[in-house]
């Protein structure tokens, strides 16, 4: 075999490789475009140093919002700071579309509710928005999964998912159980 020649078998493998990659990308395209499943990519800036003065992330505006969004989703606002998510505990209904809006008041953080797709980085200067639905009631930890300093191990909050029928809309933002 001359050195500048592609073997027949190799040519076939090249097509197999291309087909495999095409299949993977195709599956992702279908879910992304067809079902609108994207990673959290909400490019929206905010001044992290003055979150407490902002309309949205002031202390009394945090937590599960009393007013549902136009499409019926529930909105939850959280501030991430060393070493917690504030408010520290929230309660949300199962099976409902929940829009989390989060901002950091200091360094990088990451929010993740294990074994769900509720996951996002929280980068100072940006609002992170992530949408999730929790099918099963129960108590879930929301962990900080990005190194944020020596107290990072302690950074977590409690999310309680209650059955739809036991759910009561909160009267105000800010105060949670």
């Amino acid at each position: 075999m001359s050195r500048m020649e592609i073997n027949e078998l190799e040519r076939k493998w090249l097509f197999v490789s291309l087909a495999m990659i095409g299949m993977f990308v195709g599956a992702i395209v279908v879910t992304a475009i067809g079902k609108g499943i994207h990673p959290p990519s909400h490019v929206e800036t905010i001044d992290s140093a003055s979150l407490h003065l902002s309309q949205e992330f002031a202390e009394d505006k945090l937590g599960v919002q009393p007013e549902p969004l136009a499409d019926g989703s529930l909105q939850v606002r959280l501030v991430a700071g060393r070493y917690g998510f504030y408010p520290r505990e929230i309660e949300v209904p199962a099976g409902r579309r929940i829009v989390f809006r989060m901002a950091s008041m200091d360094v990088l953080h990451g929010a993740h509710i294990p074994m769900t797709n509720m996951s996002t980085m929280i980068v100072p200067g940006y609002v992170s928005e992530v949408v999730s639905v929790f099918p099963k009631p129960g108590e879930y930890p929301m962990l900080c999964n990005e190194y944020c300093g020596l107290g990072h191990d302690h950074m977590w909050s409690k999310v309680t998912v209650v059955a739809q029928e036991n759910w009561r809309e909160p009267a105000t933002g800010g105060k949670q159980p």
Partner: protein
Amino acid sequence: MNDATVNRLTLFNFWVAFGAFGLACFFGMYQVLERSGLFAFLQSPAVYFASVSTHGVLMAFVLTTFFIMGFGYYTAAQSLRRPLWNPPLAWAGYGVCLFGVALAAVPLLLGKASVLYTFYPPIQANVFFYLGATLLVVGSWFWCVIMLVMFAQWKRDHPGETVPLPMFATAANALLWLWTSAGVALESVFQLLPWALGLTDTIDVGLARTLFAWTLHPIVYFWLIPAYIALYCYVPQAAGGKLFSDLLARAAFVLILVLGLPIGFHHLYMDPEQGAGWKFLHMVGTFAVAIPTLLTAFTVIASLEMAGRRRGGAGLFGWIGALPWKHPMVLAAILSLLMLVLGGFGGIVNASYAMNAMVHNTAWVPGHFHLIFAGTVVTMYLAVAYKLWPELCGRRLYSDDLALVQLWGWFIGMVIMTTPWHILGLLGQPRRISAVQYNSVLTLSWEPYELAMIAGGFILVGSACLFVYLLYKTQTAGGKVDAREDMEDAPPTGRRHG
């Protein structure tokens, strides 16, 4: 045989690389013990994060950069059959890199640079850490220049000829590194250094992360290309066959260079500062760059099959048994490819645009990259060391049997350590924690896996010690090689000297 200058230069670079490797393994060992939570006296976030930072910097930056420089000098002189261009420049690059490492080591070990190996603004490290890391990168650019000049000189002297494959790949790697290291260099010079020196008060974290991501993915190919060189250029001969196709090998290196560059945003899938459109494009690029890896796996396996059949292996799988499993280079290639397949599967999950959310920043991720980096890449570096040490020192490898034990140990340890990480990742355990503080039922299910991690860590550290010991003994006590003896044809097995 290369001249004494090249041999010395390669050996000096290699000793820094493998010294860093040996040391880093002990930090890794401490980390699996600490985060298991089983040993109360070890619990310390301050020591843990200093250790993670040092482990990451030593493995990802020191081992790789020095190994690649040393291997590049050797490869250029050997495959082009010409003396090294400008040895003083090469020594200067070595000096700058080494000075940078020393400068960064002080704050790292004092816990003043616990920013892991991805820098992490706005958490700030001591300025000497950023300075040291920058010098390491700058010193490596000397190497890039030497490689590209030697490539060009050879082309000038050999018009119309094809440059030998190892040098073709090395030049591709030098180009790749020049371009990809620019991201982290820009971050360092224009953001981190002025900020750490107090010239600026704030830092744009979104920009810093974007610049780092520019470097962060192609850097993996910078580490991987020398391993591929060994797979393409050493393994087929060592197995008793020849390379299946030279053309496709070159195509794979060009594809890695071209496709590998613009895909770093896949490290930012979960970041709010990048739009979905960019992430989508980088996802397509990430899958595209799997093609050269699939080609490499095919070509190397096909070459091994030819060798196995030539050695009398028959049937669908008979050729596998007929391979010279006792040749360190062949064994390393087989183990490397196995880990590449396992790690590649995890990589597909990571690369998946939306599925990534389930595993992002969980223990799954170090499980994946330990298979690819510590598994595939480092295993081939070890095999290259076993091949080159006798040539560089003029002495035979101290013990082939121990080399095989060492390689098997590395593989077994890596599998035992990374399997629980993948499971823990699916169970949501974050990767960057020093202890489990979550008062939750979920975290109880994590506990049994910690024990397996520790067992894997012990095997790995033992294997790393054995490796460094073998290099040391080869250099000091290995049997002398007759100057005219051609190492290429030396019998690979059954040698033991003391």
